[in-house]
C-alpha cells in the first residue's frame, strides 16, 4: 500500500531527528577540545558540522544495518516507521533536556523495535541482528574505548614527560584539533547513517524501493545536511557534561580520548555496527582518567549516565509502541498526521522549557560545581 503523503511526513520527521542528533551529539566530538581551550567554541562547532557532512558520505554500512538488518522489512509499514521515529525523538529530547548524554542511536533503534513489536509481534524483529550489531557493540565499545584511551593517555604522559608543561600543553592542543576532527568524521559515518537507514526503511515499507535496497543519493545528501546543520547549531548542554563533568581534562588526555573514540567508531562503522558515539566518547573520557595517575573520575556522574543508557533501548521502545498504538488506533494517514502533530507540540514544549536554564558558548566552560550536570552556574557578570 503506497501513501506518499505519509512518506513525505516520515522523511521530514526523520530529517528532524537527524538534526536533533547533530544538535545532541556535538559534545562527543568537540567537548574535550573546548574544555582544554584547544579550539574556540564557535570554530569547534563549525568544523565539526563540516566534518559530519563529509563523514556522512564515507560509509553506508550502518545505514544498511538499520534498513534491512534489524526488522523484517516485509512486516514493517509506514505507520510503524513513523511511530518508531516519534518514540526515539521523544526520548532523545527528554535526555537532552536533562543534560544526560544518552544515545540518540539507541533511542532511534529502540523506538523502531518497539513500534515493530507492537505492530507485528516478536517474529518481525531480527533478534540476532539486534544482538550482534547493536546490543553487543553497545556493551563492549565503551569498555574497549576506555582501555585504548587509558593506554594512550599513559603512553602520551610517559613519552612527553621530559617536556616543559607549557610546551606539552601547547603541542597536544595542536594534536587535539586533529583528533577532534577525526571524531567528527567518525560521528558522521555512524550517526547520519542511522537516519539514512530509517528513511530507506520507510521507502521500502512504502514500496518505493525494493527490499534490500541501498540508500539513494538524495537520502544521503539530505541526511548529511541535516546532521551537520544540527551539529553547527550546537549542543552546548551536553558538551558541558562531557567536557567538565566526568574528569578534569588536560590536552594530552583530550587527545588520547578523542583518538580512541575516533578509532573505535570508524572501525565499528565499517563493520556495520550501529554503536552509540555517546557511549564510546564517555568510555574514552573515563579511560583517560584511569590512565593518568592522580586523576579523579567522577564515578557518580558516570553511573548516572550508565543508568540512562540501560533504560534508553527499552524506554524508547515503550515510547515507540505507545506511538504505534495511538497512530493505529486513530487509523490511516490521519493517525500518523495526529501523531506527528503531537510530537511537534511536545518538542516545542521541551525546547521552550530548556530555554530556562540555557547553556551556550558563554558559560559552557564555567567551573563545575558538582550536583546536577544540567544546571551550570550563570555566567559571571564580569
Amino acid at each position, binding site marked *: 500500500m503506497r501513501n506518499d503523503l505519509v512518506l513525505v511526513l516520515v522523511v521530514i520527521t526523520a530529517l528532524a531527528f537527524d538534526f536533533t542528533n547533530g544538535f545532541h551529539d556535538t559534545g562527543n566530538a568537540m567537548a574535550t577540545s573546548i574544555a582544554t581551550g584547544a579550539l574556540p567554541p564557535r570554530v569547534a562547532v563549525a568544523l565539526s558540522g563540516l566534518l559530519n557532512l563529509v563523514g556522512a558520505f564515507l560509509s553506508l554500512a550502518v545505514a544498511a544495518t538499520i534498513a534491512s538488518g534489524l526488522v523484517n522489512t516485509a512486516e514493517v509499514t509506514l505507520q510503524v516507521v513513523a511511530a518508531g521515529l516519534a518514540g526515539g525523538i521523544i526520548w532523545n529530547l527528554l535526555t537532552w533536556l536533562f543534560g544526560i548524554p544518552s544515545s540518540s542511536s539507541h533511542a532511534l533503534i529502540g523506538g523502531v523495535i518497539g513500534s515493530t513489536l507492537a505492530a507485528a509481534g516478536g517474529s518481525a524483529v531480527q533478534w540476532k541482528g539486534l544482538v550482534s550489531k547493536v546490543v553487543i557493540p553497545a556493551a563492549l565499545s565503551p569498555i574497549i574505548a576506555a582501555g585504548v584511551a587509558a593506554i*594512550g593517555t599513559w603512553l602520551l604522559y610517559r613519552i612527553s614527560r621530559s617536556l616543559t608543561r607549557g610546551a606539552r600543553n601547547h603541542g597536544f592542543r595542536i594534536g587535539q584539533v586533529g583528533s577532534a576532527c577525526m571524531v567528527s568524521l567518525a560521528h558522521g*559515518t555512524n550517526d547520519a547513517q542511522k537516519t539514512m537507514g530509517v528513511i530507506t526503511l520507510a521507502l521500502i515499507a512504502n514500496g518505493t524501493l525494493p527490499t534490500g535496497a541501498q540508500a539513494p543519493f538524495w537520502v544521503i545528501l539530505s541526511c548529511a545536511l541535516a546532521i551537520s546543520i544540527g551539529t553547527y547549531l550546537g549542543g552546548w548542554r551536553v558538551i558541558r557534561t562531557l567536557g567538565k563533568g566526568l574528569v578534569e581534562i588536560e590536552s594530552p588526555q583530550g587527545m588520547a580520548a578523542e583518538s580512541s573514540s575516533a578509532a573505535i567508531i570508524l572501525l565499528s562503522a565499517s563493520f556495520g555496527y550501529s554503536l552509540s558515539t555517546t557511549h564510546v566518547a564517555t568510555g574514552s573520557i573515563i579511560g583517560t582518567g584511569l590512565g593518568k595517575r592522580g586523576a579523579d573520575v567522577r564515578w557518580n556522574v558516570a553511573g548516572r549516565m550508565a543508568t540512562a543508557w540501560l533504560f534508553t533501548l527499552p524506554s524508547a521502545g515503550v515510547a515507540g509502541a505507545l506511538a504505534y498504538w495511538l497512530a493505529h488506533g486513530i487509523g490511516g494517514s490521519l493517525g500518523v498526521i495526529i501523531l506527528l502533530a503531537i510530537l511537534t507540540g511536545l518538542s516545542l514544549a521541551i525546547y521552550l522549557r530548556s530555554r530556562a536554564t540555557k547553556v551556550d558558548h558563554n558559560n559552557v566552560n564555567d567551573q563545575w560545581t558538582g550536583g546536577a550536570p544540567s544546571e551550570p552556574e550563570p555566567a559571571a557578570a564580569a
Partner: protein
Amino acid sequence: MGWINLSAIWKIVVFGLLAGAGLPALFAIGLRALVLPGSRVQTAGADSDHVYGGNVLGLVIAVICFLIILAALGWGIYEVYQIGHPAPAKH
C-alpha cells in the same frame, strides 16, 4: 554469522589500539623530537610554551612522525570508504 562476531571484535581491539593509542603516541614522539634543544639560543624558561627547540635532526624526526600519522589517517579513511561502498550486487 553468529550472535557474536569474534573476528570483528578482535580486529576492532587490535586496530583500535594501533590507531587510537599508537598514532597519538607517535605524535608524542614527534613532539618530543621537536623540542630537543639545538644550536639556537634558548632563552625560554621552564614554563615556556615554545614547541620547536631548534634541533634540525629533531625537526626531521618530527616531520617524519607527523607524515606517518597523516598517511595512516588517509589510508584508514580510504579503507573505511572502500568497505562502506560495496559494489551493487548483480542480478
